[in-house]
């Protein structure tokens, strides 16, 4: 699984239409054993890359969703306190050492995503989603894990990785990431797909979307993205809209300008944007769609 072409084909087969550069990035990930950092606007399909990668490697996807206040105990491991207490109560009267050996054993260890990822038999894809939402402290901790791939549990000792997972990090850019983390990773900027690629994405994902309709939808969305909106529609929104139109048995956007305008709610998600996309605007955009 080294060749870029193979990767591109495998990604396409798994339903992810990648641009040429992403295939390079993934082949480099394998060659250099480095994590891949994906940046880009919301809804351009960053998370999908990891899902597709898991399909390509036919392996599990382990996902760690980051949020503010995420700490080691919900990301790495935690002792199962309740069970430990129960064990202490049940073995009341035995000598302390034997109880201690027992309650600090694997049986009482709760695996969280990061620990799970390095203990699988087959290297999984580890998706660290929206890393920019986690705190700086967590980022520093993650950096350590990503360079050593070992975890030390004070009561148990050091747990070394049995396999090195394929790590994908995504960021929406709500916070500037540290230079150290950036340097550790390969970088790929995911942009909105061009019309041609978006049309192929629609065809791959929506059953019953014809080539001509997909192209029309993609062109229309590309036009809407150029309008000054507060929330620019992502690929996920495009797919919603395409699914809606296919579900309503639309074959050609020009046949049903009214319906096109009414279903735009799939694409624009704020009141302000909605009021900016008046019927005149949607007709004008539709006019530009060949």
């Amino acid at each position, binding site marked *: 699984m080294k060749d*870029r*072409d193979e990767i*591109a084909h495998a990604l396409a087969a798994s339903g992810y239409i*990648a*641009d*040429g*550069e992403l*295939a*390079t*990035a993934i082949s*480099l990930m394998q*060659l*250099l054993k*480095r994590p*891949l950092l994906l*940046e880009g606007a919301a809804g351009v399909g960053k998370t999908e890359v990891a899902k597709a990668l898991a399909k390509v490697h036919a392996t599990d996807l382990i996902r760690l969703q980051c949020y*503010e*206040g995420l700490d080691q105990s919900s990301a790495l491991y935690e*002792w199962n*306190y*309740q069970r*430990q*207490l129960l064990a*202490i*109560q049940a073995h009341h009267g035995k000598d302390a050492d034997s109880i201690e050996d027992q*309650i600090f054993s694997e049986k009482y260890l709760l695996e969280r995503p990061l620990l799970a990822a390095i203990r699988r038999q087959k290297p999984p894809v580890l998706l660290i989603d929206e890393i920019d939402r986690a705190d700086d402290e967590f980022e520093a901790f993650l950096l350590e894990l990503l360079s050593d791939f070992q975890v030390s549990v004070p009561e148990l000792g050091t747990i070394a990785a049995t396999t090195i997972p394929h790590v994908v990090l995504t960021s*929406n*850019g*709500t*916070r*500037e990431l540290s*230079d150290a983390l*950036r*340097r550790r*990773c*390969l*970088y*790929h*900027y995911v942009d909105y797909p061009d019309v041609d690629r978006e049309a192929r994405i629609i065809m791959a994902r929506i059953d019953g979307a014809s080539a001509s309709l997909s192209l029309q939808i993609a062109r229309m969305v590309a036009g809407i993205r150029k309008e000054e909106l507060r929330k620019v529609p992502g690929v996920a929104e495009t797919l919603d809209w395409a699914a809606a139109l296919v579900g309503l048995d639309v074959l050609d956007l020009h046949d049903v300008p009214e319906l096109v305008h009414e279903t735009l709610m799939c694409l624009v998600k704020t009141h302000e944007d909605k009021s900016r996309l008046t019927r005149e605007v949607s007709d004008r955009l539709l006019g530009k769609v060949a």
Partner: protein
Amino acid sequence: MSRCGQSNDFQEIDEVSRLVSHKLAAFLRTLREAGFAIGLAEGQDAASTIAAGYAARPQLLRSALKHLFSARKSDWDKFDGIFDAFWLGRRVRSRAVVAGAAKPSNNPSLKSFGDTGATQGASSSATDQVPSSDDAPDSRGGEGRMEGASRAENLAEVDFRKFADPEQVADAHEAAALLARAMRTRLTRRDLLRRRGERLDLRRTIHKNISHGGVPIALARRRRKDKPLRLVVLLDASGSMSMYTSVFLRFIHGVLDEFREAEAFLFHTRLAYVSSAMKERDAGRALDRLSLLAQGAGGGTKIGESLQTFNRHHAARVLHSRTCVMIVSDGYETGDAALLGREMAALARRCRRIVWLNPMAGWAGYAPEAKGIKAALPHVDLYAPANTLKSLAALEPYLARL
């Protein structure tokens, strides 16, 4: 994918990889000069990438190295140009050179500051021991705020543009830097005092009391995590502000150094992100880098357009709910004043406070008549003069309340 396949032209492979091994080191140097953060590990990885056959075709190599060397969107965007210029000798070369070489610009205000900055860069320890006198002009019960800034007293009420000799300018810079530091310490102290509201953390409590057999003797609590105040400074570097730019740049340099979270932007006819350049420890070098970023200054001020760029490309990253945006400008908008109003409204929606510092507001008889400032004022939370060190210091209690 269109660029893959059919490249078994061994002659080409040979030629390219020979070229690569000779020039890789020089290329890394070029990239570093252009602001890429590249260490030794990346160089080794690049070599192994090339050894693995990625140098077969320039397109492929470019794509591979782009992933390896870029660390952020700005790197990503300029990489192709630099690569093409370096390896393929395309015309973009001139742009890449401008991005890399640290030539001082011909912008008078920044250049002159760069010179004075270099002379005073390292010398600032002398004032630290001198206690500030009791009847300092700035005495709103702020004991200890001006810690060590003794020379600031006699400069405190002098308008920046009246600073004449280099020594006085250097003093002002030093005072501005100290002020920035003092503001930082004060803000931190207040932050701690205000923390309230502790809740019991049951999970942790059980864990903590396993040694007591589960009887909750030692309680674990969780406390609210306070987001530190973030300061985002947008500094007008246009010609009309040139008298003030240097002092404010020094102030911003101090702020970025001392605040845990601060970002800085320069604008004139366009917006430039300058935090990374400002984080240079040495003020003189930071200013050298800045003079580069500020190229093109002097052709009017497009505040509205600059704010639009900010809102569109930077706001999501640098603004959060505890952000104070500080705009330092005289408000002479040469672009569209209505656009400025709209963008100010959009900005006001996203951040906690907007402070507009206008050096001219401190002049006797000045009224905000420029149409730019008129359009912006309704969205501004604090509009203050900032032509003396004293007026800068007066901001601190305001920022502390955020």
